[in-house]
């Protein structure tokens, strides 16, 4: 079990040379080997989505992947979105709409939504509910997460139609 592999994880554009056992999960490597603790572990069964990160632009459960599977691929985590002093529009919408309480699920939701809106900017309000049902939040009752995400999707669509007009 202790045959460690040397791999490079590329997180938010920065390379981390790490030695991990083949069985090391991606989320453990991100948190412990790379020190990026914004990605959280809620169940390790792939159900809650707290550990969601973007791998080559697609949302994945980082508790269900091995770190070696993500070697040399582009990983994005919450730390890459915006700092507390300089939140990005999606993060600001979460604050404006009170879309978090304890904040433990928040990084997972932010990465899920970031990945989906980048790939499907025209996603409908109803389809967004399907997307948000991928992750669990125990505090908010989802009301304000839905509001925040719809508002951001709306703003993005409006910005694009203004730009193309």
């Amino acid at each position, binding site marked *: 079990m202790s045959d460690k592999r040397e791999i490079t994880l590329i997180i938010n554009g920065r390379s981390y040379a790490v030695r991990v056992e083949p069985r090391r999960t991606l989320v453990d490597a991100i*948190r412990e080997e790379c020190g990026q603790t914004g990605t959280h572990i809620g169940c390790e069964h792939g159900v809650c989505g707290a550990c969601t990160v973007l791998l080559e632009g697609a949302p994945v459960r980082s508790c269900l992947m091995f770190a070696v599977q993500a070697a040399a691929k582009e990983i994005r985590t919450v730390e890459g979105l915006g700092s507390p002093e300089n939140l990005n529009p999606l993060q600001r919408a979460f604050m404006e709409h*009170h879309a978090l309480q*304890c*904040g*433990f699920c928040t990084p997972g939701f932010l990465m899920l939504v970031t990945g989906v809106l980048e790939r499907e900017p025209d996603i409908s309000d109803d389809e967004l509910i399907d997307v948000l049902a991928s992750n*669990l939040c125990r505090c908010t009752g989802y009301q304000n997460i839905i509001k925040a995400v719809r508002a951001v999707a709306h703003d993005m669509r409006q910005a694009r139609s203004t730009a193309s007009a």
Partner: protein
Amino acid sequence: MTVAQPHAGWVGRSIRRVEDPTLIAGSGRFTADLPATYRVRFVRSERAAGRISKIHVPDGATVITATDLANVKPIRPMLHKFDYVPVGQPVLAVDQVRFVGEPIAAVVAASDAEAEDIAEAIEVEIEDQPAAVDARAALAADAPRVHSEVAGNIIVKGAVETPGFADARARADRIVRLELRSRRQNAMPLEPRGGHAAFDPGSGRVTLTCSTQMPHLTRTAIADLLGMPETDLRVVAPDVGGGFGQKMSLAGEYVLLVWLARKLRSSVAWHEDRRENLIAAFHSRDQFIEIEGAFDRTGKLLALAADVIANVGAYSCFPTTCAVEPLMAMAELPGPYDVRAYRCTARGVVTNTCPMAPYRGVSRPVITFALERLMDRAALEFGIEPSEIRRRNLIETFPYKSATGLIFDEASYRQTLEMAVAAIDLPAFRARQQKARACGKYLGIGFSAFSERTGYGTPAFAARGMEIIPGFETVDISMDPSGLIEARIGASPHGQGLRTTLAQIIADEIGVAPDRIRVTHGDTDRTPYGFGTFASRSAVIAGGASLLAAQKVRIKLIKIASLLLEAAPDDIVLEAGAAKVAGTDRSIAIEALARAAYHQVHRFKGEIEPGVAASATYDPAGTFANACHVTIVDVDPETGQVRIENFIAAEDAGRLINPMIVDGQIHGGIAQGIGNALLEEIVYDQTGNILTSTLADYLPPTAHEIPPIELHHLETVSDASITRAKGVGEGGAIGAPAAVINAINDAIAPFGAEINEIPATPQRIRAAIQAASQRAEQRA
């Protein structure tokens, strides 16, 4: 009823939370984010009941068992009333196991993976014994005993009967009876529990960082169990990923971490995985209730009787004890209704299952479910609207002394009912329901009116007979020489936004913006002794203490300003960050007052103490928030599937300090209540093996299952709270299950079917409809 007037300050405004930016940026600091030299993995019992005959440990492994912990006392909370039988829970099982998931051994290794490998290799031989799993079965004369000292498995028993009960019941025109069942649930915070204990060789102290709602009581408990001075232990609650009550009870695992840190003179961490959380981190709401209402011919409730059986699991939680569910059920079952005659028995029954502990609302989601089902059944029998029978029975005059002696302060039970009825447009719904039924579509409406007892201090806890009586909160406020204000609190928020809420209260007193105030919590080295955040108490009690301490700081600042500005104290106002002489242009910045308080004390000529600091404690008797929930559901009788169309809550939590935060609390509570009503269930088989060990089995609700929630507010002013705020943390979870189940019953009424069990899963709804059809066929 007096309604709060608009307030021209920070209180009452939906300012954005100071907690948010770091959490949203992933810069929050949770327990699992700390590095540790050693990791701990617990070996847990796979048997519900049995004797440990042998533990085989691989060579060279560091494994702690009960024999290593001879000097560690068992967790043994005490209650001095209600025939409570104290039982001890060893930190690691001593000879005997009593539930699946009970810790037997602790593996210490350099990494989680290594610790898990060793744990896998440990063999525990257990001689099986018969297990008591179901609470009713555990009451049978020949049932296995869970603890030899607990006769009949009854660990606590309460009984109340008001004088003249039998006469009142005899005067009734109609007796309505129901048997209800609430299945077992898990509070399921998204962050499981976890702890990190670090020994400091310099001071000999240990810092325990853990995911808790009550840092000071955790310190007290662990220091007592280990026999060490409390001061040698520092407990830190960093960012905590939700608690909902599950993290207000002591985790035995944390005791072991502190013991290990001292033994190894190093740092050790344990992070509960989700399976451990689901099987061993406290359960709730496993109750049977029989309820009987005696009504006169107008539908007025004359007498209420109930029998409550609460399955409390294998041990008793610290600090509340496992009596908290049955006794709260007994004390608060009459709810918001005016009923003078009451009889109740409530028993806590030990079984070979995971211990019970408080979960958002404690017993009240279950008793509200029972009482509100009773009201709906009575309405059906009287042939009147469910809203009408409530109208005829809700408390309307205040203060109201309940049959169990509780004092209900000013509230708005009737008004919130009327708000809910109007918001849902009841007549329009009834018309739509008729049309839908004609097309084979089954809609139903469900109401739930309830009270939420909140913000109660030491008198309420003392009445329960607890050995350790929580209740007060202290707030220390100081202003540093640069003029920044810090409020240190004993409460321990974990998602409630209390830092923002308290800053709003303090800001109004001191005349500064909330961003000039830092609220510090969750560190026993830095904060005054307090009891933490639970029981919808913090806004009321820590809020009240914040107000009192801020008033003292205000007086001090005015005194300094009066001297420096050479004006009478009565002429000084604090506003917009300055002390001003009213009616003049003379003013001095708050920062300059702070500077003078520390660095120009010679100007005070001994008349004013140096520095700016004040402390205050608040210990109120308690208050009652209230609400009426109403929901419309669509039930598919073929599949038993329930779709919730909409959900409305008309609520009254007194003055809203931050309406945005209050709404968030209610949304979250209602979502948990909907999950509890329809989906969530911890399932044991007959041998006490647990079948729900992933979130895919336990089924917390997702964004799909929660409908849009519409909120209406009233703000009744009550003298029971000095900030005029009542607690609001639990109400959503208390009311929602009853409203949802009432709506399902209204929907399936045409089949003659009835369901009185939560969660009302599709299978159970189908079974209820089938049973009703069979009854109809037999009659035909």
